[in-house]
């Protein structure tokens, strides 16, 4: 059943990315067809959302987008009309109008109304994004110059580093500047609390498809949350200038089924040392036993 739906979603992804490539550039397309979790060539709109937060961001953005395009077109239209009607040849005698109270009230009140229409969903979205309702697990993200460390505090507290795969080691089909050696793995449809900090300078952990972008600041722990609803691999990049290799600290998140996540946890626990353990002590014991 699960496998079946995986296959279906894969087919759908293939199909929809084809569709989005051809359709997106032709017509104005705000409802995303593509499920690509990475940027695609000539993409001019959001990456397809993978969390309820990002879906709501896009929904609210679209409301503003329509109104704003309308405003730009209105101003552009008025300017074209002015150029045609009020150039010195067409209209040799300028009028003397410098006031029109009704008009002035109107162009003050209408923007206020528009802003109120924007403000309501904006506040809803903001407060929805703020906190997870019932987080089931925690992920701790630490920014370093220039890689990410991921820690699973309530799943054995193991920690591992996630480094970029340098250009020269990129295999065909891999995404340059986006692939890492150790992807951070998360279960699907799970509310996950994300804690973020940094060891040296500020970084920013951002995954566009999740609608997550949070500064990692030394001396502070920031909190956000994520609930990914689609299985897949998602890519992001550090989004706060952090020095020489700022462009080379990507984020790759592999979202798997809950069962697969459990399997991965087992493997990961043995592979990555738990940061609870005292490494020096272990080493000493190891030497002793020898």
């Amino acid at each position, binding site marked *: 059943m699960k496998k079946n739906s995986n296959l279906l979603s894969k087919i759908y992804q293939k199909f929809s990315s084809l569709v989005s490539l051809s359709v997106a550039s032709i017509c104005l397309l705000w409802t995303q067809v593509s499920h690509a979790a990475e940027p695609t060539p000539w993409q001019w709109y959001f990456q397809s959302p993978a969390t309820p937060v990002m879906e709501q961001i896009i929904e609210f953005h679209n409301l503003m987008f329509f109104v704003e395009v309308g405003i730009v077109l209105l101003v552009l239209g008025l*300017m074209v009309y002015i150029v045609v009607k009020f150039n010195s040849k067409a209209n040799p005698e300028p*009028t003397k109008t410098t006031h029109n109270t009704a008009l002035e009230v109107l162009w003050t009140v209408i923007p206020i109304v528009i802003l109120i229409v924007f403000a309501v969903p904006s506040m809803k979205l903001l407060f929805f994004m703020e906190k997870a309702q019932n987080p089931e697990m925690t992920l701790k993200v630490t920014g370093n110059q220039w890689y990410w460390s991921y820690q699973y505090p309530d799943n054995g507290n193991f920690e591992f580093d996630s480094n970029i795969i340098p250009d020269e080691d990129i295999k065909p089909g891999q995404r340059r500047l986006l692939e890492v050696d150790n992807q951070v793995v998360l279960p699907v449809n799970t509310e996950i609390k994300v804690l973020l900090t940094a060891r040296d300078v500020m970084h*920013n952990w951002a995954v566009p498809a999740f609608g997550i972008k949070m500064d990692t600041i030394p001396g502070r722990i920031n909190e956000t949350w994520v609930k990914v609803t689609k299985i897949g691999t998602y890519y992001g990049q550090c989004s706060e*200038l952090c020095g020489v290799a700022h462009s080379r600290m990507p984020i790759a998140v592999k979202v798997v089924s809950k069962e697969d996540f459990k399997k991965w946890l087992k493997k990961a626990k043995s592979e990555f040392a738990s940061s609870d353990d005292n490494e020096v002590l272990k080493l000493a014991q190891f030497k002793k036993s020898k």
Partner: protein
Amino acid sequence: MSDITHDHHDHRPSGWKRWAYSTNHKDIGTMYLVLSMVAAIIGGAASILMRAELHEPGIQFITDPQFYNVLVTAHGFIMVFFVVMPALIGGFGNWFIPLMIGTPDMAFPRMNNVSFWLVAAALILLVIAGFIDGGAGTGWTVYPPLSSADYHPGMAVDFGILALHLAGASSILGAINFITTIINMRAPGMTFHRMPLFIWAMLLTAFLLLLAIPVLAGALTMLLTDRNFGTAFFAPDGGGDPVLWQHLFWFFGHPEVYIMILPAFGIISEIVSTFSKKPIFGYLGMAYAMTSIGVVGFVVWAHHMYTMGFNVETRAYFTLATMVIAVPTGIKIFSWLATMWGGSIKFDTPMLYSMGFIFLFVVGGVTGVTLANAGVDMAFHDTYFVVAHFHYVLSISALFSMYAGFYYWLGKMSGKRYPEWLGRLQFWVTFVGVNLLFFPQHFAGMAGMPRRIIDYPDAYAGWNMVSSWGAYVSAVGGILFFVVLYKTLTSNVKADANEWGVGATTLEWTVDSPAPFHTHEVTPNVAPEPAE
């Protein structure tokens, strides 16, 4: 422009002393404009280098990523502090405040001289900051800990801090001078409510400078002592907080964007009114729209910090406060359109640039409404969408107002008429160039491309290539500008005292072109006309 006052018999020093020791508002204004052009060449060269590097994915020719970060930093600083501010405030402000309010000079002429030379010294320090000890690669926001001694050892950041200190001192002195001049030295009859909108804009700008720059100076001093004297204002391991810097920086930084755009509002208002041959529509509304933008501009700073992690109520406040700014901004846009409405407009270069300004400002303004929302900003923060937004609403808008003002007043300043066809050509090249340059950046940003990166995932190649071509076209526009300038200064076509006709009603058009070394020696009277 050394022959500005050729035919006049004024007492004035000659040779280098005329400029170095100058206390004349016109000469100082000219020096500011020249400084701005020199800085624009440096800052523009930095942009072209960046766009050429980003032309294709992969590293093209900047093998040291630190140098790219230095370019990002230098471009920002130079454009803000040494191109836009010197041109709009130092240049046009010095030239035209006394001319427009009917006074012979600024209130403190010698302080005016100090203001200029401080900013000239600051420019030199800043250029040094780009080349010494690997350069300052912090971005113009200079966020610690990246800007701390641990991560930027060497003297580059210190040079940058000192450069900003000098530029800041210059701005504060200039602001005091402007405020004193405008409040005390207006011609009889020119009440506050009868001042040209350019004067309103400059007065408000000066107040913003006076209130914002000291906060920057304080923050910079704290950073300087953190770096050199062991304090820990921004160092978490000493009990400090990097976020404190962000609050201080943006408390200055947000008013700073209005410091750059209010003078532009003033210039555009004058030009639109002159070329429509109509008084400005809704004058009081325009003046108080600018005032409210200035006031509200001080209480919205944290919308630059939505991803920093402060509590949701604070983000809600900053979202709502920021959106409020759209209202006075809308009033200005529609009042400009209403001024043109029913006018008899001649579309000379200054007017083309003014209409270009309005269009660019609206495009950048609506994306600003999007970005004001803390929720949606999660998708945009630190992406190229933001780069596109602020270049539209601030950078190229300010640039267009500088070009507009320059063409508008070039006759008054030089006594020569610029070649109109060349001016229009220069406008169209620039207009196409900047839109080609910045519009695709919206797309790259929405797709997720972060700012300030030397290399990007291959998927972003398309829009980046278009954007780079736009940069080259804009650069051609910039070169054409210098061609226009050269042609004008070497031409024999004299500009009339009032070259724009009946629409040009402000006092600078009552004096000769070029404006004599001393003007308004007899105070003009602008007592109210009988009620209409």
